[in-house]
């Protein structure tokens, strides 16, 4: 079953030079610390916290998101934090290419690889590492510091290995994300 076309209003989205589409109704804090790779869609009521940066002077990338990513409605992307050697600090977050994040998910991962599909209502705990080609089922709660290796399907609370993905999943997710951006995300 193909996804239905997602119709949007031109006035709702800000389009950057590299083709990112960011909803005007999303909350983007500290935009100077956020890097979007291009052709990434951030939908309405999302929150990306680029202002939660490491203490200390200087410019730092807090949230790096790659190409062809999709952040569904009401997502929260927040860099992970911890107290290390008596000092509380935020640490940068990296999201690679072709990452789909469903509605209402909260992401505090340290790293999310390419070709990752995160379902709706997920919670990705602090400093979790999700490698390439993974799938997180709807409603999964990935505990802090978890490592999810490639070709895994994780689900449940706390999330554990449920299944393995087929070898062709990279092409499937790549085609899905490209198709969405080029064809399914259409002007009203």
């Amino acid at each position, binding site marked *: *079953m*193909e996804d*239905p*076309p997602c119709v949007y209003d031109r006035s709702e989205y800000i389009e950057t030079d590299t083709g990112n589409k960011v909803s005007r109704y999303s909350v983007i804090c500290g935009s100077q610390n956020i890097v979007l790779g291009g052709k990434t869609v951030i939908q309405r009521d999302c929150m990306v916290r680029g202002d939660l940066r490491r203490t200390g002077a200087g410019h730092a990338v807090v949230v790096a998101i790659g190409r062809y990513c999709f952040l569904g409605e009401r997502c929260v992307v927040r860099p992970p934090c*911890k*107290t*290390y*050697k*008596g000092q509380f600090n935020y640490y940068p977050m990296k999201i690679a290419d072709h990452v789909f994040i469903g509605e209402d998910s909260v992401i505090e991962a340290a790293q999310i690889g390419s070709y990752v599909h995160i379902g709706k209502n997920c919670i990705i*705990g602090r400093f979790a590492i999700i*490698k*390439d*080609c993974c799938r997180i089922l709807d409603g999964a*709660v990935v*505990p*802090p*510091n*978890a*490592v*999810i*290796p*490639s*070709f*895994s399907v994780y689900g449940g609370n*706390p999330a*554990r*290995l449920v299944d393995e993905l*087929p*070898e*062709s*999943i*990279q*092409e*499937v997710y790549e085609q899905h994300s490209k198709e969405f951006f080029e064809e399914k995300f259409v002007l009203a």
Partner: protein
Amino acid sequence: MSLSPAPSSTAAWAEAARIPVPFVYYQCPCRNLRASQGDVLSFDSLTQPPQGADILTLFPLPRLYFCQECARMCCPLCVAEEIACYYCPNCLFEVPTASVKAERNRCGRNCFECPVCENTLSVVSMVEPTPLAGAGGAGPAAIPASPGGSSSNNTHYLTCGACRWDSLEVGLQFERPTGLASQLQPHEDARKDAIEFENLRQHFEKFLKSKDANGPTPASHVGAGGLLRGLSGGGLNLPPSLLATIPGLASFASMSRRSSTLRAIRAEHKLEAYSSSVDLLKADDADRESAVVLSTSVTSLQQRLHQPNDHAVHKTALYPQRIQLRTKRSKRCRKCDHIVVKPEHKAQSTRFSIKMMASNHVPSITLAHPFPDKLEWDVPVRVIVRFTNPLDVPIQVALATAQSTIGTATADRTSQDLQNEPEEGNCQITLLAPNFVVDAARDIWDYDDDAATPAATLPVAVHQKARNFCCVYVQVTPKRPGSRQPSSEPARFVVETIKFSMLVHVQPLGHEQTSSTEVPGPEETAGTAAKPDKKAAGPLSCWVVIGLGDLIP
């Protein structure tokens, strides 16, 4: 309910495996291959529609492989798997095959699994060992160890970030934060069940060794593995140690030795009685009963199965386990032994040196929009089915349904025949476009110049045709199952999945037809050179099951 002689097989099918609707699943031909015993798929076996029992051979296209030697699809059930490498899913270190067995398929580094919730445990330091006070506020933000200070005073323990279990609950502390598995090793070895196992092993090993010392085993064995035993014992006189070095034959080598010694043991009856040195596994029934009453302290079945040594009943006996290793596997076609998938050996790599997927050879079939709003009994709806061609040549697609088998006489059939009866489906299908051509796949920038074919020039029942896809209409009329089987009990609150099977025949059309219309550019020649595996193949047929939605009969 399911004991009735011929239950609505569709309902049984839907209940047995709930494929979420809507879906398009392909049938792997492997079941027919086995039935026909032949090398090639016969016409009969190919044109036999999927049956209710064939649910296990239905797969979504991304899960299917393609064997080029046999020119057929392979499902995960009809490929043979070989382990290419072992790695720990937490630290992602590759474990050499030689040490996998010694470490009992678990990570020998610092990776532990929570005995309560199976989450990964993290190591936390604590300056002073205060077991009870530390348990309260434990977490990753616990009192950090001073960097250069008196680290010898520090103790370390494991804590779970998900359920807040920590190893102090079972009195487990470590002196150093690294090499936890080796620190835990003496403790593991001191367990009663481990000692008992070791005692048993020694008890039998003593005996086995004495038998081995009695001389080489005679070569005249008969029975399973006789050839190999002959190789090792007589004929070629290969020592078992040599056999053991050959990966696939190691088990044979040990088997031959073990079975011969066991026979000798049986003959001589010299095995002395074993008396256990540790009082183990004598759980007090009353104790167990009281534990069950106070059910909060009893482990769940899942937790118990994760404690392979003693299947602990009490929660206080739950121990952290080293994390089980995962594998990368290469896959072979079972019929011709050719490799269809071969991963790179590096644990973290997601690349494959060989990857033959069906999605590169078989057109992908999807249900396109607009999708019918709702399904109703006896109301025809039109479904748009999209065929996308992955090959670099156009393909001719021919469709057929299993409708012709419906309505045949059932009077002289036995119940066996009824079970083998083709899946009837609960809807009537009209293929409006049984034959059409799908254009070749090209690089994405080649598509921009030609727009979709105007609707006026399209053949009948073709909804849309552009690039490398073609959308055709299929008319579907859901038919109430009651009309089919009036004998079955009337009120059954089972949801019927409206689905139908369709035979798809794909005939690639030659290169000649395309080359005349295309101007080969430099990019294109580079593109075709880069993907040699997409070469034109022969005709291919497969059954596809399409599920549209659920209806209550």
